[in-house]
């Protein structure tokens, strides 16, 4: 099961404690998290379901590559970090 952790800066807008979820890709993991926290989705993904322009996601040590499809693979014990980019502030 992957552990998803969200930037502290998001906590002021929407409650988002670390979450554990299964999934083979970043999309699958996040969708399971959003199922239990639907308001969180719009803070991270845009209208088309892509990662917001000024957000970053790390899967373990790697920055997300597929920002629109979120198809990057996720290992069984992956650590996923949802961060805000330095741009966009």
């Amino acid at each position: 099961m992957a552990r998803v952790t969200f930037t502290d800066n998001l906590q002021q807008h929407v409650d988002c404690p670390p979450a554990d979820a299964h999934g083979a890709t970043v999309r699958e993991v996040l969708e399971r998290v959003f199922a239990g926290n639907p308001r969180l989705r719009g803070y991270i993904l845009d209208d088309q379901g892509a990662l917001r322009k000024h957000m970053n996601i790390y899967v373990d040590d790697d920055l997300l590559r597929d920002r629109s499809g979120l198809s990057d693979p996720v290992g069984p014990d992956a650590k996923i970090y949802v961060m805000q980019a330095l741009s966009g502030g």
Partner: protein
Amino acid sequence: MSKKIWAATRKGVFEIVRGKGGWAIRKVHFPAQNCSMLLPDRRDGALYAALGHGHFGVKLHRSDNGGKSWTEITSPAYPKQPEGEDAEWKTYFGTAIRWNLELVWELAAGGADEPGVLWCGTLPGGLFRSKDRGKTWELNMPMWNSPRRKKWMGGGMDLPGIHSVCVNPNDSKHVTVGISCAGVWITKDGGKSWDNDGKGMRGDYVPPEQAYLMQGQDPHRIAQCPADPNVLWVQHHNGIFRSTDGGANWTELKGVKPSVFGFAVVVHPKDPKTAWFVPAEKDERRVPVKGQVVVTRTRDGGKTFKTLRKGLPQKHAYDICFRHCLDVDETGDRLVFGSTTGSLWVSENQGDRWKTLAEHLPPIYCVRFG
């Protein structure tokens, strides 16, 4: 007369109240957050605020108790973009227009006979309507799918946007919309069909053959007189225009001193011949003329204008009043305007004299009596 002013700024929403000692800031809502638009809905007392988080997107909030508490409501969202569609619909300099909400640039209440109906103008140019106080939103597809949208341009910003929605108080299905840059769009059937062919508006930033095409016009702001909805005033990119037939024909008001350039306009709610503007020098010099902040007012439908400056800074002032930053209350006597450099002024006598309410606020994006 209204005794409360709401000011949306780059770093919070300021609630300003008139008490025994005069006007004072009572509370800062959403401190440090960017608020692009406000709507006090006079039909049911609700207050709406559109926050634009740099990282987390645009979020709408509503208060049903005068700002004591806020609830996040649904933000307008664009539908799924068809595959390859962005290759065809681009800005005129080639940037693909993605179907994503970038900015809420206008919020307007529907008619008195449509409780809960809201209109929302956005970048990149979508017009949304809610029938349930922001619980759900629907993109107006007849406008969005119009082939004319391929010719829309950004005005001030890269993406085109909707900044003015005027609902005819006598007919809720008659809605007049201002787009930068796509001119004035008018529906008389609640948004099923649109007219974008008004005559007489002139753009000086296109070849002369295209100067009078409505679809390329850049109305900075449209104001509709509640007492006579056929009278519309427009502060345009290169001039001031007025229509007395609901936007079918426009008359340019030339030679207004100190300038015809600006962003904001309001019209007296009971007198269609009285309107106010906050001029700046011109397009390529967006500063007050001679560093003097003034308001211009006409009382005769634009034949003559008076320059109002009492109480306003007249030396080394560089305040610009954006399009949503001038408001008039329901009596037509009280006005307020705010500036890019965080100044806020109020008048209780139709602009004859102004009083400074604040000088060091964040950049102001919208002011509303409410």
